[in-house]
């Protein structure tokens, strides 16, 4: 078993941000690992396994620290919302892994540019929402949320990523409290990642070999982030997250555009 310090640090950093701002673990970490010379079959399944476990831990501690409350009997709104998002995400990840590994590819640059611009736009809209908060965005819009879940699923399905940014910002636009929105995303992402692992398991029967060499390092960094992040979400005021989330979405959008056109 090999523990790689730089991977542990990256995993800790991006999982912390993912748990606190609802986005970034897959979208930001995968390109970095590819730049370090790891292959998609080393990176993608490992990120999914790590995200499934750390997402579950994050969910438990978000509930424990009262960032959100889940209930299955009776099913409360937060749980319902997470399950709806997970449903679209599961459909999408199944489609994207099957399409990707059975050689049906969409033009990469078009998809990545579309997702980067969409995330940038959502970050900017997040700031506009803060400005207009008391005017027209303060209403709760459950139907809008279902639309955003489908859009996030579609993005993931065509292989562009950006599932976290779209459902986090989508929840905020639909009137969900910022602290709770990021917590619900972790729950949904954990379920989606389990579906992803299952799909990889299926395609491994078709002769695709996965390599889990990065798993101990990603799991270590992600685990400690998943313990600390829900506590920080609880302690820091919601006003902080209200600004940080759109700023981080904007930053991820810029990072993706740089990656497409500069790196």
């Amino acid at each position: 078993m090999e523990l790689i310090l730089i991977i542990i640090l990256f995993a800790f950093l991006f999982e912390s941000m993912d748990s606190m701002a609802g986005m970034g673990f897959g979208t930001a970490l995968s390109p970095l690992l590819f730049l370090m010379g790891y292959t998609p079959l080393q990176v993608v399944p490992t990120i999914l396994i790590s995200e499934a476990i750390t997402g579950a831990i994050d969910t438990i501690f978000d509930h424990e620290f009262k960032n959100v409350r889940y209930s299955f009997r009776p099913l409360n709104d937060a749980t319902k919302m997470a399950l709806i998002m997970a449903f679209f995400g599961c459909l999408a990840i199944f489609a994207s892994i099957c399409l990707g590994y059975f050689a049906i590819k969409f033009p990469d640059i078009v998809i990545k540019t579309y997702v980067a611009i969409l995330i940038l736009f959502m970050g900017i809209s997040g700031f506009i929402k803060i400005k207009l908060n008391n005017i027209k965005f303060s209403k709760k819009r459950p139907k809008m949320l279902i639309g955003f879940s489908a859009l996030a699923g579609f993005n993931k399905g065509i292989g562009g990523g950006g599932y976290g940014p779209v459902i986090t910002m989508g929840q905020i636009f639909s009137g969900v409290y910022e602290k709770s929105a990021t917590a619900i995303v972790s729950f949904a992402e954990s379920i989606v990642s389990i579906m992803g692992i299952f799909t990889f398991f299926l395609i491994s029967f078709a002769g695709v070999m996965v390599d889990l060499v990065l798993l101990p390092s990603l799991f270590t960094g992600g685990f400690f982030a998943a313990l600390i992040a829900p506590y920080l979400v609880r302690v820091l005021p919601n006003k902080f997250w209200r600004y940080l989330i759109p700023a981080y979405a904007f930053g991820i959008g810029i990072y993706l555009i740089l990656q497409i056109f500069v790196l």
Partner: protein
Amino acid sequence: MEMDWEIGKEARELDEKPIIERMRVEKRSIMKISVALLFYFVTMVLFYFVF
């Protein structure tokens, strides 16, 4: 889902309390953190034998 959902109600209430109150960790939470750490060490031992 209803229009008057209660998502984040507890988080909102907690936000109105002073930061010292929000920083306080209950005994039950410390127990859960300990169980999570135990889970981490068991998982790493498993990884050691698998990888």
